[in-house]
């Protein structure tokens, strides 16, 4: 009787195993060091490149000639090696992985900490650094310590204006920034069936903010139907009785809109407690909340109105952007005064467009509010899409209304 991580990795919690990886990916940031480390190993060998991906998402398009030259070298290498390559404008690596690439039961590693996101498909998906990735490029495998698992039992349904982001901030605040270090999270219970894949992606995405290796859901009918739309035929995973080292229960009906306040993701307050805080920027996007359903929800709230503060919306992928164009969501956002960015990570990491100035305050739908992350002296509050939309209209942190 095993946890999903134990089943996928084929070992018991605490054991060290060597495993072939089904998918390994880097982005324009971590790819540079990965290529450097791979060259230093001194082999010209690459594992089966059909399992490797390189996706440009962090600084897209390049912001200066240093970045452009680094990206040029990576692009040439990726094309020459015949690995899967996703260029500027295609979208965030984790989002592309969730558009029909990662499948249930796979072992997936990404050179980015939010690679935990793909755990949503019932895959063991985790982040590694550049040198680990270079060795994976060489051998196609890596070592894992099979993690103990922390079970998060979900029950009930959302009420009021609460959404998946508020649930994610709830579990992160209850576990703390290191509450699941060296462990995996499994999201289970009656409350799971009512969550869409986009909801679940938010929960898996924030798992690393508790220190977890990954945040898994068992593939169910919702997963099967989602992947069928992406052209993939998969079967549900049947949970077995298993042992969790710790369990946490959350009733979705008790969740209220929350924000994580600077500079910790695990320090949250109900929106109503800090309502009225003036904002300089609202940012909607990222691997947490940049999907089509997020943009559509934001558009429903701002439709026919004008935002009162600079508002940057960055679709998570080209597919998201294309759907927003097709359905008219993009026009609503632009007419409301939003600025639309190139699909990618956008201002989340503070390296290019959308950087905060000294003393500025941003309400962001991202997953990190670390000190100076979006710009030196800027303050980041993390909240849901509905909170971001209500706040954008008022120019201050605002409790979203029940839709």
């Amino acid at each position, binding site marked *: 009787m095993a946890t999903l991580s134990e089943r996928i990795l084929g070992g018991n919690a605490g054991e*060290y195993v060597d495993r072939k990886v089904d998918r390994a990916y880097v982005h324009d940031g971590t790819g540079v060091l990965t290529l450097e480390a791979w060259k230093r190993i*001194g082999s010209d060998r690459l594992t089966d490149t059909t399992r490797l991906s390189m996706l440009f998402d962090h600084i897209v398009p390049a912001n200066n000639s240093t970045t452009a030259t680094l990206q040029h070298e990576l692009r040439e290498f990726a094309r020459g090696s015949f690995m899967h390559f996703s260029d500027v404008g295609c979208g965030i690596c984790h989002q592309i992985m969730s558009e029909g690439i990662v499948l249930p039961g796979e072992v997936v590693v990404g050179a980015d*900490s939010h690679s935990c996101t793909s755990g949503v498909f019932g895959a063991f998906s985790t982040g590694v650094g550049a*040198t680990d990735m270079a*060795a994976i490029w060489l051998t196609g495998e890596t070592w894992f310590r099979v993690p103990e698992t922390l079970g998060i039992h979900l029950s009930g349904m959302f009420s009021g204006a609460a959404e998946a982001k508020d649930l994610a901030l709830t579990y992160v605040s209850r576990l703390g920034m*290191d509450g699941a*270090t060296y462990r995996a999270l499994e999201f289970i219970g009656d409350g799971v069936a009512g969550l869409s894949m986009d909801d679940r992606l938010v929960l898996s995405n924030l798992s690393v903010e508790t220190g977890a290796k990954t945040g898994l859901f068992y593939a169910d009918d919702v997963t099967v139907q989602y992947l069928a739309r992406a052209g993939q035929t998969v079967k549900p995973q049947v949970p077995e009785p298993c042992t969790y080292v710790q369990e946490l229960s959350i009733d979705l009906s008790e969740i209220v809109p929350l924000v994580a306040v600077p500079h910790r993701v695990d320090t949250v307050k109900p929106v109503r407690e800090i309502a009225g805080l003036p904002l300089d920027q609202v940012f909607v996007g990222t691997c947490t909340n940049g999907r089509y359903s997020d943009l559509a929800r934001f558009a429903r709230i701002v439709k026919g109105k004008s935002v009162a503060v600079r508002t940057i919306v960055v679709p998570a992928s080209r597919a998201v952007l294309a759907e927003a164009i097709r359905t008219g969501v993009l026009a609503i956002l632009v007419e409301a005064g939003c600025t639309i960015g190139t699909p990618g990570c956008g201002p989340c990491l503070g*390296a290019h467009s959308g950087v905060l100035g000294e003393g500025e305050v941003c309400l962001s739908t991202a997953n*990190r509010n670390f000190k100076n*992350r979006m710009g030196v002296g800027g303050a980041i509050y993390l909240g849901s899409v509905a909170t971001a939309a209500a706040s954008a209209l008022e120019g201050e942190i605002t409790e979203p209304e029940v839709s």
Partner: protein
Amino acid sequence: MKGKGPAVCVGPDIDTDLVIAGRYLRTKDHSIWVEHVFEDLDPSLAPLLEGSVIVAGKNFGCGSSREQAAIAIREAGVVAVVAPSFARIFFRNAINVGLPLIECDLACMEGCLVTFDLAEGWIEAEGKKHAIPPLSPRMQAILSAGGLVEYWRNQR
């Protein structure tokens, strides 16, 4: 592996953005990371790091997977980082670039001498000796080689 150095104390939950900020990542020039290491935590730390042992609170290295954080600390001349716990990606990154990490809950006194012997499994500060858990055999082999690149170069 043995080492010693004066303690440089930092707090808990130091994320890798604080070790090296995102605005300095887009380069292959490691000296830029050394120049700006811990800048957003405390700009006065960098000059203290050469030959030191960083003694941190829990969950050191959380957040971004950026390996530049481990490289910056190593190339700043830090002998080892000691903390009650490390974020797991940082843990792998540090060993992979040859930076020793020691899991130990050490009360930090700024500047006090910290000595350790990984093979014998102990760390000592202010006259108190603490046992430290061994790394896995694989991680020991990687660290002994000087890092994962050197480990694989030796395998070829």
